[in-house]
């Protein structure tokens, strides 16, 4: 594998993991916030 192959692998894995983690937080947050009264989720 060339140097750029390793670079692409590292950057792709990093972006994929962080995007997947962010999406999981957002989706789960939207799901749970529907079960909590609005007065208990007054964000900053």
């Amino acid at each position, binding site marked *: *594998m060339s*140097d*750029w192959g*390793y*670079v692409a*692998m*590292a*950057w792709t*894995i*990093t972006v994929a*993991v*962080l995007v997947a*983690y*962010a999406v999981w*937080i*957002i989706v*789960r*947050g*939207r799901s*749970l*916030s*529907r*079960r*909590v*009264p*609005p*007065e*208990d*989720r*007054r*964000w*900053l």
Partner: protein
Amino acid sequence: MTTQRSDATTTTAAPSEPTSNAGPHPASPPAQSPAAPAATPSAEGRIGTGSRGTRILGLVTLAGIALGAYLALVSSPQDENMGDVVRILYIHVPIVSMAYVGCVLTTVASAVYLWKKSVWWDITAAASAEIAMVFTALTLVIGMIWGRPTWGVWWVWDARLTSTAMLLLLLLGYLAVRRLPSAAGTRSKRAAIVGLLLLPNVFIVNRSVTWWRSLHQGTTILNTLQPKIHDQMAITLVFAMAVVALVFAWLLVHRWRLAWLEEQVLGHDLDQAILDRRAEAGFEPGYGAAPIAQPTTPGVDAP
């Protein structure tokens, strides 16, 4: 607004309030059924963990990622020894730095939680520990990818790599303790004690290249007396660290709010379970209420 946990050992502050004051008890019936959807249009607008501030932060972060990727992958020169593989370090170093920050934040929040028993700090510790775990795992994976073309092996039991792997195990242990079935206060206290171990471990990881003979390179950025890095590489690396810090901040805010929602839902579910159980036992709603129907079988005591 503030609430207290049902085990009466800890206090919960509102999302923007790290202080604890007296307030309604979560064991009281929830104002809205846990399964009910948001009722009003204004409440619907607040669905999720986002806010105006986090949306602005997200946009700034995305712009920073784009510019950082350009600097790291296009503009920055090759390293005379590593060649293009040096471009991996523009994500490896910032991510391990923020993993350290997450661990330190977890330790600080755990210590404050043990002192004040505030759920605000407990949630902060939990959120930062989970993000630190993700960043530490990424650090190891990216480091392995960098090590293969540079050292010729994916993994070696080097002091830095081994201590980082131990840090990952400690973070996984912290998150496992948080999921053990126990009272909320007991669980948080156990987790906070584990959280106190993270800071010493980070110090060991950071100093491992100095204390032991290591294949891993030593300090570069912080070695200001004898800088060994090209100017443009240094600028790219510092910029990448700032961008990853923004990513960390965005994740921390959203994960904190998610953990807050989990606490609220857990409290509401517990309230509902208690109400259901009392209804099954024939009790009127409310504490200390007499049973509706007494046992009629002679010689059998009430439960």
